[in-house]
């Protein structure tokens, strides 16, 4: 990554100080017995390293294997082969009792919250503490602390049926944090929530990550979730990780088809219908070439089209575009049309300015 030094300022420390990762998956494969008895491969050859204090987003379509993958981390699923190291211990090889103990340092939240309907918010949060054998006074103090942390102190005596979806997930988060875990697993935690509530839950998770230094691994099928909270992303498809790396890099320079299809829904990347419908693979007399320009980091705000016109006399038509922020860094996409005869010159010019280009087609 060639980001100038100034950009290191907002990077978490773990990127500068190499340390033993908190979660490490080594050559994981998982094979299930299918309905007819034939083996079904859910995961194959997964290698994944999650540094302490980081936020890793795992994105994939339903059935891609992400649910299985996240459940390997707390031993709810056992790998068919490979090792799952969490905080130095091989979770996949621990005996049941030791595994239960290890799970106290791995919290988990769920899409459907999975709260006990028979317990109030406070009692739900208390449950992992009761299970771990804390005494009553310690539980009471810890529960108050947790409910305050998630902003639900005034709802302590409400039953889940009396809470909104966002409030239920806050209870879920408080419960997951009860035993002071080092890792928090999020299984589509915002998929059942509306966009605004999703926003507030993600903000809460980001705050927990920053304030408590908790490592977060989340699975989702929504790019928006990854973009707003994750630093690292792994794209999973057909049981394999097809692309992984820094969110900013993956978002701005997607290499795999699946990643691109996830990004297609992102604002500014999708072509407006009036362009998409007229797009042809080949140039025709009088047509314009359509180029997608990706602006990254410091180049995102460069007046590059103005320079193109001034220095080369090429006038580009803006067809679509946006400037946004991913993982705290600016980036943008612009779809422009240029005269066919200027295409090569334009591409050269853009590359010289450090911009990513992609020729999408031609419009008459």
């Amino acid at each position, binding site marked *: 990554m060639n980001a100038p030094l100034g950009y290191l300022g907002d990077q978490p420390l773990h990127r500068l100080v190499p340390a033993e990762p908190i979660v490490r998956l080594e050559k994981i494969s998982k094979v299930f017995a299918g309905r007819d008895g034939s083996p079904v491969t859910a995961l194959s050859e997964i290698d994944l390293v999650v540094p302490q204090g980081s936020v890793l987003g795992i994105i994939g379509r339903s059935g891609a294997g992400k649910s299985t993958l996240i459940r390997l981390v*707390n031993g*709810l699923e056992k790998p068919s082969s490979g090792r799952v190291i969490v905080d130095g211990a091989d979770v996949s090889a621990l005996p049941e009792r030791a595994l*239960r*103990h*290890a*799970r*106290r340092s*791995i*919290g*988990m939240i*769920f899409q*459907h919250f*999975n*709260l*006990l*309907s*028979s*317990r109030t918010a406070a009692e739900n949060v208390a*449950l*992992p503490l*009761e*299970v*771990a054998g804390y005494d009553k006074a310690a539980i009471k103090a810890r529960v108050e602390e947790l409910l305050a942390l998630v902003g639900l102190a005034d709802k302590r005596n409400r*039953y*889940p*049926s*009396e809470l909104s979806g966002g409030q239920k997930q806050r209870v879920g988060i408080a*419960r*997951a944090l*009860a*035993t002071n875990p080092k890792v928090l*697993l999020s299984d589509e935690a915002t998929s059942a929530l509306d966009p605004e509530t999703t926003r507030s839950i993600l903000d809460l998770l980001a705050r927990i990550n920053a304030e408590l230094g908790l490592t977060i691994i989340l699975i989702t099928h929504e790019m928006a979730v990854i973009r707003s909270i994750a630093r690292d992303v792994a794209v999973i498809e057909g049981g394999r990780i097809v692309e992984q790396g820094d969110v900013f890099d993956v978002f701005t320079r997607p290499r795999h088809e699946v990643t691109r299809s996830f990004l297609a829904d992102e604002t500014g990347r999708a072509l407006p219908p009036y362009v998409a419908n007229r797009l042809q693979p080949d140039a025709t007399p009088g047509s314009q070439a359509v180029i997608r320009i990706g602006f990254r980091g410091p180049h995102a705000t460069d007046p590059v089209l103005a320079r193109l016109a001034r220095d080369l006399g090429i006038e580009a038509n803006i067809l679509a575009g946006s400037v946004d922020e991913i993982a705290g860094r600016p980036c943008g996409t612009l779809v422009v049309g240029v005269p066919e005869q200027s295409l090569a010159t334009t591409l050269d010019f853009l590359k010289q300015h450090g911009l990513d280009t992609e020729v999408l087609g031609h419009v008459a």
Partner: protein
Amino acid sequence: MSPEMIRLIASATGETLYMVAVSAGIATLLGMPLGIFLATSGKGELFAAPWVNRVLGVVVNATRSTPFIILVVAIIPFTRLIAGTSIGTNAAIVPLTIAAIPFIARLIEGAIREVDQGLIEAARAFGASPLQIVFKVLVPEALPGIVLGLTLAVVSLLGFSAMVGAVGGGGLGDLGIRYGYQRFMPEMMLAVVVVLIVLVQAVQSVGDRLARRLNKRVRQA
């Protein structure tokens, strides 16, 4: 209605309540763990023991498919072993209990299976042991369903108890048959039926109310 009749109905009601209460109590104590085990011992479940589960299932079904009156006479030797006699109210409690155990076990199994699997997963994820999952998650969450099941079991036992007159068990059913039918006293028959209706209504409404109070799944007014 003569004072004599009222005295007979009162003592028969007492016998019925005694038989039903004792047999329901014992059958709950034994049927509850059986039901919990049936609900959690299938393949891939908390106490996975698919074969034991299957065998117990067959035994439960066999007991439930035996007509009650046949069960009463078929287990007379066992009744004598337990109660010391095969006739009377105490002896009648034995077949009533035997019949109620598998019934209650199935009702409790059903109530427990209704609990969202996601809760078991969540509990496993925070480190709960299988026993903790049963007593801190499954039973509390299934409690409204369990209460409704036990209510149904008590109502059924009231019906079954009418048949134990065959072994001198006494109670309302026995009174109705002997006085109402064999002695041609239709008013006695009617009185017995009315008392049974009142009992069933009372049991059902108490059970319903309790289940509703325990159910936090729906917003309470």
